[in-house]
């Protein structure tokens, strides 16, 4: 970690890590999946699995 490039690389990584730490401190993370997304996902999965099974999966 002596060369100028290595120092600058470490600074760049530090800048990126700090950016995410700033985001982490906020109450809401922009574009994060919400509880609504998870509920929609579970419902969609159940409807797809049950629907496909009852429409075509039974022998």
């Amino acid at each position, binding site marked *: 970690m002596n060369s100028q490039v290595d120092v600058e690389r470490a600074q760049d990584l530090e800048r990126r890590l700090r950016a995410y730490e700033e985001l982490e401190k906020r109450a809401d993370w922009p574009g*994060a999946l919400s509880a609504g997304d998870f509920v929609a996902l579970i419902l969609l999965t159940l409807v797809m699995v049950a629907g496909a*099974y009852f429409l075509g999966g039974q*022998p």
Partner: protein
Amino acid sequence: MNPSREQEFRLGAERGDTPLLPSERVWGFWGYAYANSALAVATWVFLIGGATALFVGPLQGIAAIVIGNIIGVILAASSTCLPCGKYGVEQFTFLRSMFGINGSRLVYFLSVVVLTMGWLAVLGLMCGRALDNLETLVQQTQPDGDGWIVTAGALLAIVLAALVAMRGPDMIRRLSAVIAPSLILIMLALMYFISQRYSFGELLAMPPLQPPFENPHVNFMIAVEINIAAGFSWWPYIGNLSRLCSNQRTAFWPNLVGIFGAASLGESVSLFAATTLGSSDPTAWMRLAGGMGFGVIALSFLALANLTGMVNILYTAVIGLRQLAGERLRSMGWGVLIGLFCIIPVVIVVFLPGIYDGFFIFLVWTSALNSALAGIGIADYFFLRKQRLNLRHLYAEQSGSPVRFCKGFNPIALVALVAGFAIYVVVFNPQTLAHTDFFTFATASLPSCLLAGLVHYGLTRLLAARLGWGGYPKGNERNIEAAGLRVQD
């Protein structure tokens, strides 16, 4: 910092050296949905649809495709796209948080290197079969099975794929741009030819090609398992695509358009083609479906599409291997590394050509691994880390990082992986199709995913804090610890 250096670091972030910032990510919802669909609609959908037709007829087959893919895709995407899409972190760097630095290298080797070698052999053999069927069409002879044309064609495809991969990403991008639309055209043409011969009702009532069991429910569950395996087979790849998306939501939902929706449609068309044309081999459909003209064009495109797929996965796997491997591999020439990578696929083509007809066996074996990996990922990210990663731990020197675990490996995650793999094989043996009664209502992937997750969660709660492994948050201090603030103090 001068602009050229800034550009260099940004390129490094794109390649996975550091986390990508939200402002640097290139894909919105539809951009990722398109890329995702183009990835999904490749020659593997033909193989998966064809394999499904062996076990069930079209009506049950479509149900198996929908059920299997939705389960596999959602579990694979939850364990990779959500963390990688949130933090912009490279997938196998993220895996350090649960497997350790060396453990993530091991997972890369098992899930990407082995999988890619198998796929190279399968797609190479498909190229060989396409050439053999072309010869059959032109010469009006019978196909040669696994004769010399198939072997020579497969070996030629592997050599060509290696040569193109050595040329770099520009050529790959140019080839890839034309393949997905061409395959969609071939599928539409197949559907047209099939609809000319059969009504929709007749199609749905067709029987399976070679059901191995008398009980149709068991055959149906095997078809579901094959399609869960197809969904899970994206696990090694989609994390690194999703980190290019603008946010977590954009990194997740388009998977349902592409690797679920587009792949399911393609597999359904393939299922119809296999059932009506009496073969699970896609190269035979192209010969039988629409006469000489269609056959020659479709088989040529199929061979080219396989070649493109092979180049894509070969290039991606070797890039990743170089990133994760030590100095010795990194100092090796790019061409030499690609050449060495192709040795095992060549051996498989020559000595185990049966991998092509028993393709689903290979696919389902990979699910024994991928389902356990997904279970561990979900347990670790959602339940142990409460969706918060400490990026400083992931990028720290191994000697000073809690994700060093034990000599760079997390024994807990490895035990969980073995447990998940073992329960899979006990419940359903992909090689012999032997199964327990439990399999007939629970599948094998779901118990494997659940058990691996439970073992990882339980042992981590029990041991990791005492041993100082992993930097897991404890109770209500999780936010401070996970945000990385304590590490900086």
